[in-house]
């Protein structure tokens, strides 16, 4: 039964558009699925391989800008950005990983924090290529209804889920976990840690880049503040996984639901709207202190707590 759970979930999600939800509700669903794709790819690098990244906006934005720039300069459809971003983000993460993955733990985290900022500043200043703060606008939308966008991102999410499941079940996945648990021990067993960390970074980066390329097609507009922000992309990515569950298959999905719904709810409350990041920060602190492995990771702890209360 457990084996079929992903298929059941996928089938149920595929039926969602049939409910005839409003355009806004479809938007929420699309965002949830997009964030779970980003969360899952972060989880591969951060949760399984132990390399905490605070710069996933870099990959996300790069994917989006790849699609945007090819659309703008060559006039090809922005959907070409999906395959093209695999190449650009892949090469970028390879070079970036080669340089910064010599660093361990927190230093890698810092490097990722900086690369997001660097790409934002570059996108703002390279006006010939990116149109700077003006942003890139996709003039013609592919579909008017949101249903087809929903199916595209759902397909991407399904592929990401099964890819990550495959990777984690393979030898590669065991290497990743070994590196997370003890890098020195992993190295002494003959695992080329820098190489495998780079592999994890590339996989994670490319998947996030694909989500970015989807984002420009869906939203039709990007600028540096939208796709490269530290808080609204990079930190929300970390929070999706931290809240949902680090190193679990379902964690990113649970986290995406909570984060998207939570932020939409808070933003709709007047006065409190401005403070939505404060709530994120408090939530992050709370999660780290009380549920360090996230909701899915600490499900036993939660059940125990609930059990005590009901008894």
């Amino acid at each position, binding site marked *: 039964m457990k084996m079929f759970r992903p298929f059941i979930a996928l089938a149920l999600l595929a039926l969602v558009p049939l409910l005839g939800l409003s355009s806004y509700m479809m938007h929420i669903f699309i965002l949830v699925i997009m964030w779970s794709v980003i969360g899952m790819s972060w989880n591969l690098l951060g949760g399984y391989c132990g390399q905490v990244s605070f710069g996933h906006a870099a990959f996300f934005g790069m994917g989006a800008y790849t699609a945007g720039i090819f659309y703008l300069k060559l006039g090809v459809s922005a959907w070409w950005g999906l395959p093209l971003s695999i190449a650009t983000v892949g090469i970028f993460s390879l070079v970036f990983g080669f340089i910064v993955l010599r660093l361990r733990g927190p230093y890698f985290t810092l490097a990722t924090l900086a690369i997001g900022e660097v790409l934002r500043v570059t996108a703002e200043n390279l006006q010939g290529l990116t149109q700077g703060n003006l942003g890139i606008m996709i003039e013609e939308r592919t579909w008017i209804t949101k249903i087809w966008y929903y199916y595209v991102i759902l397909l991407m999410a399904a592929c990401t889920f099964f890819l990550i499941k495959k990777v984690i079940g393979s030898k590669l996945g065991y290497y990743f976990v070994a590196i997370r648990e003890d890098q020195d021990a992993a190295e002494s067993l003959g695992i080329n840690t820098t190489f495998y960390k780079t592999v994890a970074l590339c996989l994670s980066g490319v998947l996030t880049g694909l989500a970015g390329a989807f984002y420009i097609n869906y939203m039709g507009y990007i600028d540096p503040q939208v796709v490269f922000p530290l808080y609204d992309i990079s930190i929300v990515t970390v929070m999706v996984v931290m809240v949902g569950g680090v190193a679990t298959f379902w964690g990113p999905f649970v986290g995406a639901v909570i984060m998207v719904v939570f932020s939409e709810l808070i933003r709709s409350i007047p006065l409190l709207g401005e403070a939505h990041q404060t709530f994120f920060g408090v939530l992050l602190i709370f999660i780290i202190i009380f549920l360090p*492995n996230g909701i899915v990771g600490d499900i036993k702890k939660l059940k125990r707590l609930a059990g005590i209360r009901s008894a």
Partner: protein
Amino acid sequence: MAAGQIELFLQTLIAGFLLGGLYALIGLGMALILGVMKIINLAHGDLMMVAMYVAYVLFQFFHIDPYLAVFIVAPVLFILGAGLQKFLITPVLKVESILPHNQVILTVGIGIVLSNLATLIFKSDYLSIPVSYATKAWYLSDFWKGSPIELSLSFAWSVSFLIAIAITGVLWFFLTRTDTGKSIRATAQDVDAALLMGVNVNHMRMLTFGLGSALVGIAGCLFIPIYYLYPSLGKQFTNIAFVITILGGLGSIEGAIIGGIILGIFESMTATYIGMGWAPVGRFAVFVAALIFLPGGVASLMKRRSFVSIK
């Protein structure tokens, strides 16, 4: 080179050197915390932002000069830092979790909360304190009538620089000549050995976090007459602090001072010869260059030299 170019170069060098002195103070706080706690404090810049707003309020309501505000801001930040350490970071050190860098993520959460609370209270407008000496400067031609080139030295920059040097001297005296300072250094070197020698490690950690926060708070006060303040300036200074720690050598005090001055000069040069907006990219270039060519930072160079001289 024409006289004008030499003039520009020297002026940039002076500005960079003065900026570097202030950067050194920011880097020192980070290096202290990093050395003792072995964690990177990603709320470092946000603590500085808090200090700047405290100084701003002191000026607005009590007309206290930013330089005098140092005596109030430093204790306030000390208490804030020590409190954060005692009530948030120490509990997390004991929590069992999959991810090894929970404390680092925790400091990000703290940073988000601080910067957003500042946005709520003060709005995101740019503020500055209208001090009378902000535009005062000394000119080379005032001292040397026949000088072929004209150089100026800003009053506010020079005073800030001198205070930064004085604070650094006091800190050096504290760390090398007093019992408490020696205990802090012992904790940084080896926690277990320090415990065995009767050092109250938890107390030292609290003291260090407080001291690091107070240092960055002082830096904040010194920046006020020459800079403007806004709630999200923290990120930028966290970046600066960590580039300095990488450049200087992880947790090295002397390295942080030299690293700060190098970065100050480099940024000043970038701003003059490439463009103001590119400063974050220049910073990242320094960071990458330090990683590739000097992984141990300036501290490793100094160690090598002292090693030779002992032999």
